[in-house]
């Protein structure tokens, strides 16, 4: 397999980008639209000219054309060849490398099985669903046994459930194949779910590289602007309710979080992941907090509210139209719901 090193890469918005992806690592490149993520992938793939150097396994590959770099690349639009059926799409790279027909057939068969698309082999791309196309595109990218896999926001067009399912499957497959992978997304939660490490790219500069939790709990100022500064609560007391569920108390706030660890130091949540209501919400009283609204900051298309609850202060971000639909006043009583799925934790062992 292979490590990737980018040294002083400049092209379009990217200026002097330095980045290292370790052998067999899954690194997620996170950044807003126009940050230069796809440009970096195209540079690694050798599809565009650039300034600087790209190394695979510490050997420069700048002079190597795209068809000799042994890269698997999943484009955002997937770009399955519409005039080939599924099997022919997967076999395309092997045919171009003039592999013997029996070897091509065996490899295609193997990939159809791994990706669970055997029954689709004679279908054309227009006859496939979004998730099925995803699997075919991945099988095609893996057919040539690439040393590096590049994925450019591949789950963008899929619904939440399908993309979550595919992400989990892909993560397992990546680990099994041990293939160095660079995965591009603009979604922090997707990045956090997939990554061994995250590199945050903004306006063509790498702003921060680290473990997902490091990025979330200790974001640099530039990263804060992009993912939003999280609300971080220090935990005073932890009580394990059952396996996988822990009750934590952070000042006056009592929360139930999903964790296998008993000792939790900090809990964090992004302002846009807290729901705010001017009336007491119906349903069980879990992860709901009553507070007092102290500040309203309008900046279209969102409104940022600060809510004081005991010794804690929480920032909440909500869309303008939802804000306008409620009667919210400074010093008025409000209720907050902290979505358990969106709560991030730091335990004692981290």
């Amino acid at each position, binding site marked *: 397999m292979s490590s990737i090193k980018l040294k002083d890469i400049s092209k379009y918005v990217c200026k002097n980008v330095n980045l290292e992806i370790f052998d067999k690592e899954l690194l997620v490149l996170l950044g807003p639209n126009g940050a230069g993520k796809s440009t970096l992938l195209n540079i690694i*793939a050798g599809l565009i000219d650039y300034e600087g150097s790209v190394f695979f396994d510490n050997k420069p590959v700048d002079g190597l054309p795209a068809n000799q770099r042994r890269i698997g690349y999943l484009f955002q*639009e997937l*770009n399955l*060849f519409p005039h080939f059926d599924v099997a022919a799409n997967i076999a*395309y790279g092997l045919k171009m*490398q003039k592999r013997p027909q029996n070897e091509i057939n065996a490899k295609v068969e193997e990939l159809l099985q791994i990706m669970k698309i055997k029954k689709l082999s004679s279908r*054309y791309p227009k006859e496939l669903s979004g998730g099925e196309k995803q699997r075919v595109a991945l099988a*095609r990218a893996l057919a040539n046994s690439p040393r590096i896999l590049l994925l450019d926001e591949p789950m963008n067009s899929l619904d939440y459930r399908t993309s979550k399912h595919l992400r989990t499957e892909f993560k397992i497959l990546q680990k099994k194949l041990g293939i160095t992978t660079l995965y591009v997304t603009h979604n922090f939660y997707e990045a956090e779910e997939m990554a061994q490490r995250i590199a945050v790219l903004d306006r063509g500069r790498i702003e921060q590289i680290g473990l997902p939790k490091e990025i979330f709990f200790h974001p640099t100022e530039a990263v804060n602007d992009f993912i939003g500064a999280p609300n971080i609560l220090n935990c005073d007391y932890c009580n394990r309710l059952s396996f996988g569920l822990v009750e934590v108390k952070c000042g006056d706030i009592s929360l139930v979080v999903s964790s296998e660890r008993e000792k939790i130091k900090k809990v964090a949540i992004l302002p846009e992941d807290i729901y705010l209501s001017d009336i007491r919400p119906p349903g069980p009283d879990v992860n709901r907090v009553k507070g007092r609204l102290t500040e309203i900051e309008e900046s279209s298309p969102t409104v940022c509210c600060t809510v004081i609850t005991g010794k804690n202060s929480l920032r909440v971000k909500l869309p303008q139209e939802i804000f306008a639909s409620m009667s919210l006043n400074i010093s008025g009583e409000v209720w907050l719901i902290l979505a358990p799925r969106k709560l991030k934790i730091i335990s004692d062992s981290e």
Partner: protein
Amino acid sequence: MGRNFLSSLIRVLIGFSAGSIAGLFIGIMMGWNNLANKALNPIISLIYPIPALGWLPLLMLWFGIGEILPIAIIFICSFFPILYNTVTGIKNVDKNYIFVARILGASDLKILSTVVVPLALPNIFTGLKLESGMAWRVIIAAEMVAIPTGIGALMMKAESLIRIDIIIICLIVLGVMCLSFEKFFAFLEKKLTNRWR
């Protein structure tokens, strides 16, 4: 009637095939290679607006009144529209398909033959369908004006003999041939692209 029809048919087949193949070949070259496009586009843009029959006096002087004359007219009539449709088709192929093929190890020639040309087929067939009918319209006009054989010439003779029946039969044959040629290419297009479009 039969001999005249056969003369027109052979002229259309040869002229249209030669014009289409040349248009296709140069169109692929111009669509794929920017340098070829830049070099040839100004000349072709200048010649393209001239109607095929406008060339008739010049071609008569060059080739005389023989079989080459109608074939050359049909060649000119077919060449330019098919060239433009091919250039458009090739240029409209999403660059990412080319990138994917390149990453998967395909050479330029393979990318062209396995990805770009097949994906440009719908555009190419639009040109072929339109121009196959147009070739018949142009050959009739050329035969009426300058060539002594063929359906067009027969219609002119029938007109001087006041044989309305022959004129009507010739018009029916012309209509059927235009339609058959267009339908043939529509069928071929459906056969080649319907499964994946």
